[in-house]
């Protein structure tokens, strides 16, 4: 017997949380790149998606500022996560997104003008087009995190039917404080479901900083309580984010069960156009965050690798601006729905009891819609 008598307590479980990063903020490659990133064309493709997403995002903000769009939630600074998600997912997987996952939605076939239309207040924006992977995707959930446990049902359906499909439930850091998040993470392993929970930790939930959201060191570790792997990735490193997502999706598809990924990023914009982050966020914090911008990082990386030139950049800038303008024009061209549309998708068949209300709307004088 040792001098200090052995304790009755023993360690019954121990964990660690890994963080993956291939490229640092200066664009320096830190470790051998995954196979996809050794193809310069793949790097250019991811870069193009991020730059175009940012151009469209800036256009949306500009339209809101000039009274041509409603309140808009910008994805500025978070383009890498959406891009990685959209590329990593297979066509018949199901994306259950949060707002700011625009890049993923665009890659899966949601027309960017639909996103504008959504923030203008038009439900048709969520009727994603036939023949695209987005056809089976959920529209994003405005209530924070409540969509996450729905992914349990979606993934359960895949498993029940023995389909090699994965549900990706995306959320922000704030959503991980909700019971919805915990209930989903806690139960996913019970049925070993093919689901990936993707947290875009952008450090701010409107005005509440990450440190005030929870005392947990990482959000990824919340997975561990549910008996599933949780890991962090540098969400501003598109290569790392795609790598980690592809690995998690492949594992889920192979029957290895659910996983939580915390992609660490930063919200470079206000929460929405209705918010002014200067009220609660220090300017120097924002300036510092810009040094970790995912677009700047991949550009520096590609320049170092010799697969991106000033001419390439100028050409892409012009293309992206033209695309954003085309998106705006496509959005402007959409006419308002007929007033009775508020009844026509309420039920598969409108109950007779609602017929009189619908008739009232149809015979109402003056147009009640806004462009």
């Amino acid at each position, binding site marked *: 017997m040792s001098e200090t008598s052995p304790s009755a307590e023993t360690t019954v479980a121990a964990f660690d949380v890994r963080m993956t990063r291939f490229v640092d903020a200066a664009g320096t490659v830190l470790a051998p790149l995954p196979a996809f990133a050794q193809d310069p064309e793949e790097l250019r493709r991811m870069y193009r998606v991020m730059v175009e997403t940012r151009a469209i995002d800036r256009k949306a903000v500009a339209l809101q500022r000039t009274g041509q769009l409603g309140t808009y939630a910008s994805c500025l600074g978070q383009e890498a996560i959406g891009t990685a998600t959209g590329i990593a997912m297979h066509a018949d997987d199901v994306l259950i997104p949060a707002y700011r996952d625009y890049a993923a939605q665009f890659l899966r076939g949601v027309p960017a003008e639909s996103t504008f239309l959504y923030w203008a207040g038009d439900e048709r924006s*969520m009727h994603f087009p036939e023949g695209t992977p987005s056809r089976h995707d959920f529209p994003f959930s405005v209530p924070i995190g409540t969509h996450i446990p*729905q992914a*349990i*049902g979606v993934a*359960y359906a895949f498993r029940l039917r023995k389909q090699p499909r994965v549900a990706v439930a995306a959320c922000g850091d704030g959503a991980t404080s909700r*019971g919805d998040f915990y209930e989903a993470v806690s139960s996913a392993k019970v049925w070993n479901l093919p689901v990936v929970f993707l947290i875009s930790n952008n450090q701010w939930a409107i005005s509440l900083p990450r440190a005030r959201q929870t005392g947990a060191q990482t959000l990824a570790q919340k997975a561990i309580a549910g008996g599933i792997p949780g890991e962090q990735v540098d969400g501003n490193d598109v290569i790392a984010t795609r790598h980690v997502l592809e690995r998690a999706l492949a594992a889920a598809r192979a029957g290895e069960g659910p996983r939580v990924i915390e992609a660490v990023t930063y919200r470079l914009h206000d929460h929405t156009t209705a918010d002014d982050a200067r009220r609660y966020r220090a300017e120097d914090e924002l300036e510092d965050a810009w040094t970790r911008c995912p677009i700047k990082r991949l550009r520096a990386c590609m320049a170092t690798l010799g697969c991106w030139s000033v001419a390439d950049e100028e050409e892409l800038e012009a293309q992206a601006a033209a695309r954003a303008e085309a998106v705006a024009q496509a959005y402007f061209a959409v006419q308002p729905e007929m007033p009775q549309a508020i009844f026509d998708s309420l*039920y598969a068949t409108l109950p007779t009891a609602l017929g009189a209300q619908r008739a009232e709307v149809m015979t109402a004088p003056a147009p009640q819609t806004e462009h």
Partner: protein
Amino acid sequence: MADLNIIEAVNLALKSEMARDENVLVLGEDIGRNGGVFRATVGLLDAYGPERVIDMPLAENLIAAMAIGLSTQGLRPVAEIQFSGFLYPCLDQIANHAARYRNRTRGRITCPLVIRAPNGGGIHAPEHHSESMETFFAHMPGLRVIAPSNPARAYGLLLAAIRDPDPVIFLEPTRCYRLFKQAVEDSGEALPLDTAFVEREGTHLTLVSWGAMMHETRLAADALAQEGVSCELIDVASLKPLDMDTILASVTKTGRCVIVQEAPRAYGPASEIAANLAEHGLLSLFAPVLRVSGYDTVMPLARLEKVYLPDVRRIVAEVRKLLELAPVG
């Protein structure tokens, strides 16, 4: 054809529809080996296995959310919430998601799901087990709300609810689960979801109710018949959408109406029915429409629950009041 009570009729409908459609599955707390706390799911696990009879972790919000996720994939989940007070955690999922997906995606994503729960008091259950929840759901656009009152309707309406392409809240009359039996044929035939049932024809007044209160109302009509008062009895059955045509047709004939609901009075379905009668049937009425209901109080615990619950005595008293205002003949 077998004589079944309501819980047996629910069980038969589930069994029958799971056999007919492999997309139907059930989920809830203690519904597998235990067969549900009221035994509504007895035998399903053995017949259909754990993949289609899902014993859920203790999280009602998750049960509703999972049912939504399953239904969006073309499955037909029937979720059981163990007691009515535990429906509250589901309200967010039901109101913000189940009731809205069809509309917000303009028909692209739909939620053909059923959430079943025992509804109401009268069984001396613990706190939070005896609430009447129909008003909450009847106010949510995009839902159907069904409250069966007898075994045959429980069977036929549950089949209809499962087959319906939209989300249905199916509120079962807790205190009547084993109160009486009725011949129920496993015909596989669904009843219409948006129709009130004229259960008994009468000439002097119309008694309108649903769910567990139909039983008390029926007994009140029997008692009044002894006094020579002829009551027409209507089982609303579908609270949303509400079949006002059937109720209006009856009140047009009788000119008198008493509505009986167990839920608290304010803003409840009885008020909605009374408002509709005032708007569309006023000229047929000989007297004001009266309501017998639970009080606007917190649902009392077991010792005082009878104070709260409408019963034959209160219904008969209200009818007598009505007949004093507008005597028959």
